[in-house]
């Protein structure tokens, strides 16, 4: 297999499978190591980058998937049965952000942070396929653990969990400063 053929093979696989395919599997089929495969996938990605192309190559964690370019949505709505865009309510988004940043996490842990029962939100997120069960925690009652899915990465346009906006203690400091500034402002008034 020459390089052109390898790229063609990668394209054919990604096209036929539709869903995301792991890099290791792709590498296995073209009988190359991961790095070489990654390089070939980058070439494929470049090819799709052209204005004449309506599809793009998504990278999700260590998987790849072909999808239509976001700009094509309006045209597609005219012809394809497109899934309706999920409108996430505030409570669902709050729950999702806790799961995204604290995964794996149990219902109880989510509830203790939000201060309210979160069953509805968790169930909605499961229904949307944005979160999934990751197993059970080794704790009394063996509660279920939740984490985000690949669909979550796709919907929020991130390659991997590492690419989520950072959340850290500095942020808390920022909040603090914000609060202080507000007080000073109010005092000045």
């Amino acid at each position, binding site marked *: 297999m020459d390089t052109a053929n390898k790229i063609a093979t990668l394209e054919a696989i990604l096209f036929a*499978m539709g869903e995301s395919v792991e890099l290791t599997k792709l590498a296995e089929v073209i009988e190359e190591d991961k790095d070489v495969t990654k390089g070939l996938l980058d070439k494929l990605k470049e090819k799709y980058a052209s204005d004449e192309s309506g599809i793009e190559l998504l990278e999700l964690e260590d998987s790849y*998937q072909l999808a239509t370019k976001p700009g094509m*949505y309006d045209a597609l709505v005219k012809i394809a049965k497109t899934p309706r865009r999920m409108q996430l309510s505030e409570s669902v988004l*709050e729950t999702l952000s806790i799961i995204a940043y604290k995964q794996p996490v149990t219902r109880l842990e989510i509830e203790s942070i939000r201060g309210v029962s979160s069953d509805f939100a968790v169930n909605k997120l499961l229904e949307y396929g944005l979160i999934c069960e990751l197993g059970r925690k080794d704790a009394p009652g063996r509660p279920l653990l939740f984490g985000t899915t690949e669909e979550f990465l796709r919907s929020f346009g991130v390659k991997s969990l590492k690419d989520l906006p950072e959340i850290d203690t500095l*942020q808390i400091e920022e*909040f603090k400063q914000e609060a202080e500034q507000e*007080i000073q402002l109010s005092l000045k008034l």
Partner: protein
Amino acid sequence: MAIPVKLQVFEGPLDLLLHLIEKNKVDIYDIPIVEITNQYLEYIRAMQAEDMNVMSEFLVMAATLVDIKCKMLLPKEVNEEGEEQDPRAELVEKLLEYKMYKYMSFELKDMQLENGFSLCKKETLPDDVKNFREPIDYEQLIGEMNLNKLHEIFNFMMQRKEDKIDPIRSHYGNIEKEEIDMDAKALYIEEYVATHKKFSFKDLLEKQKSKAEIIVTFLIILELMKTGIITILQENLFDDIYITAVKAA
């Protein structure tokens, strides 16, 4: 504080508290607990308690606030290092954590909106690919197995089958299950009670043919006693039990 006519909906007690803190433009690390507690309580008083579950969550926080308020009036507790403990510390931590995730949820919302909507394709593998069956590698399949081993397995199984047959008990006749009609038995005993008024428990049991019938009779007697149709009297331990009908027909 004037309660707005239309109450804003909050995600929960922490959400409401954050709102009050922001509204009053106070430092989250130095919450004026008296003021905030009053406002909080005023708010939940105005809340329409449609859902008791929701309401109870707000009430738990109200109790926490009142608790903190009391502790603030008392001399401050000190920890092992002699530092004064702020009764608000735990609540502040919770509020900050919640605020952080709430903030991140806004970020996520923006990310979702900015991320264009793309479509994926369903799997369309050609049928012959989907139905493809790997040829069987018999060498791998059979592995270390050979005829002698297969023979051993067969012998082992035949022996196991023989072992399962108990040469003594297999000669016994069948044991048949005896069906006892509970309802019929209950009727019989009720009638016995009605006609005999007072009788010996032993006599009644002796009239039963099998162990199962004795057990059923015993259960029915217990039931009749529970429902107050009969009373039971035993003078001394091991004496015969006398049964008396309560509702004389």
